């Protein structure tokens, strides 16, 4: 599903964000990318989304060589993925519903269908009654769940979640993780970046440990 071969990413001024990464995520898998701040987790997810290209190495996502992806093939490729951004990227000038609606439109979902779908997803994350609130009035955990609902609009084959439990307290963090595990059970491959090793051990899933841009360990 996701394969990386000797991928390195060097930012200007010799910032080596990723060094010689080789990994393989199976279809239907739930994998953690774990490592301290600055280890390169976000960078790795951005490469998978083809938001950026690596300095060297090869990346296959859904059987596609994302580096060689033509510009006109890029949007359809991204529409098969779901992303939860580390900073949520929720728009504070519109309601929760409209935040999801914006993405539904990009995905080309007709309004009649997206209305029901948005309702269903907000119910799933337990936020239907907050659909018409502006995200900044929501708590951190609620915003997180809005971001998850939005990422699921595309019925993604792969869900990339960047620090989806950010600063949440442990109980809430586990709730979110269970939500993602549910999504995974329904067939979506899930990659979760987190700096929190406890979460990894509590969930008991495979984890790739990153440090200073290198894959240093794999659990189990």
């Amino acid at each position: 599903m996701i394969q990386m071969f000797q991928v390195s990413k060097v930012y200007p001024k010799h910032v080596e964000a990723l060094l010689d990464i080789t990994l393989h995520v199976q279809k239907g898998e739930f994998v953690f990318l774990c490592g301290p701040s600055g280890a390169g987790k976000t960078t790795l997810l951005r490469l998978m989304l083809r938001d950026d290209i690596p300095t060297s190495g090869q990346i296959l996502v859904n059987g596609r060589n994302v580096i060689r992806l033509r510009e006109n093939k890029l949007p359809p490729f991204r529409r098969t993925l779901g992303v939860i951004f580390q900073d949520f990227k929720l728009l504070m000038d519109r309601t929760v519903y409209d935040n999801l609606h914006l993405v539904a439109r990009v995905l080309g979902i007709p309004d009649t269908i997206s209305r029901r779908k948005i309702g269903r997803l907000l119910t799933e994350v337990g936020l239907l009654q907050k659909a018409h609130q502006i995200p900044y009035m929501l708590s951190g955990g609620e915003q997180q769940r809005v971001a998850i609902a939005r990422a699921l609009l595309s019925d993604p084959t792969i869900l990339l979640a960047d620090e989806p439990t950010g600063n949440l307290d442990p109980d809430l963090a586990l709730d979110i993780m269970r939500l993602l595990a549910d999504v995974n059970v329904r067939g979506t491959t899930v990659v979760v970046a987190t700096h929190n090793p406890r979460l990894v051990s509590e969930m008991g899933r495979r984890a790739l440990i990153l440090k200073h841009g290198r894959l240093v360990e794999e659990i189990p």
Partner: protein
Amino acid sequence: MLWERFQHLLSEMLINFRRGGWGVVASIGAFTVAFLVTGIFLLLTLNLSIAVAQWAEDFQVVVFLHDGNTPDKLTLLRKRLDKELAVREVTYVSKSQALADFRKQLRDQESLLEGLKDNPLPASFQLRIHKKYQTADALRQLAASLKRVEGVEDVLYGQEWIERLTGIIQVMKILGIVIGGVLGVTSLFIVANTIRLAVYARAEEIEIMRLVGATRAYIQLPLILEGTLQGGAGAALALGILYALYRATLWQLGTSAPTIFSEPEMGQFLEAGYQMIMVGVGALLGGVGSLVAVRRFLRI
């Protein structure tokens, strides 16, 4: 889906308009000024050209004669003039007729002529010219050849005036094009800047759309259409103002100089075709300006 796409375009544009605030006002205003100035030049040159064409049509070449031509000589001269291809109509004005006309023009000041013993005015032939010979060159040639005819004292015609006016119109046209061009390019930059600000203001939204798989066109089209609309609106507004100015001017002229300007064909506003071209050029400039901005500030 098409309808939703259209709705999306419309709502995005409205959002941009609302957020753009003074930027939008500035770019529409820039286009308005540019097209107003260009339009004033266009309108002036158009109406001057029409006026000059009318004068030229009415204009008579006057052939002044030596005193003491015999009636036979006059018949010969008339035949000579009739032969000219350029001449449409020949009217003879005798010395006494000329004096009578002159008296009539002087009206109350006839006393000025009382001291005169001899009639100082020459007899003349007044010529009307065929339309296709009413060019400065043709008139100059005609005058030169008639001047050489025996019995002719002098030939007067409006060449100088027509040439001068035509020259002025040419200069005005060029000036209009240059000034209009400069202002047009300025508006292009202003609209580009407005769209650039719109891109910045919506950077987050654009970023999200990009990352969830929006195509370049999907993101860019509302912005480009918005610039197009601003340019077109500016040009249309300019036309509205121009028309108001035009009516006000006609009205002013109509009250102060009724004899000259009361003829309906004296004033003419820009034709519908010109108006559409102006709005079209405004829209095009607006579109190009925003395309430049969007190309520079958006990545996929």
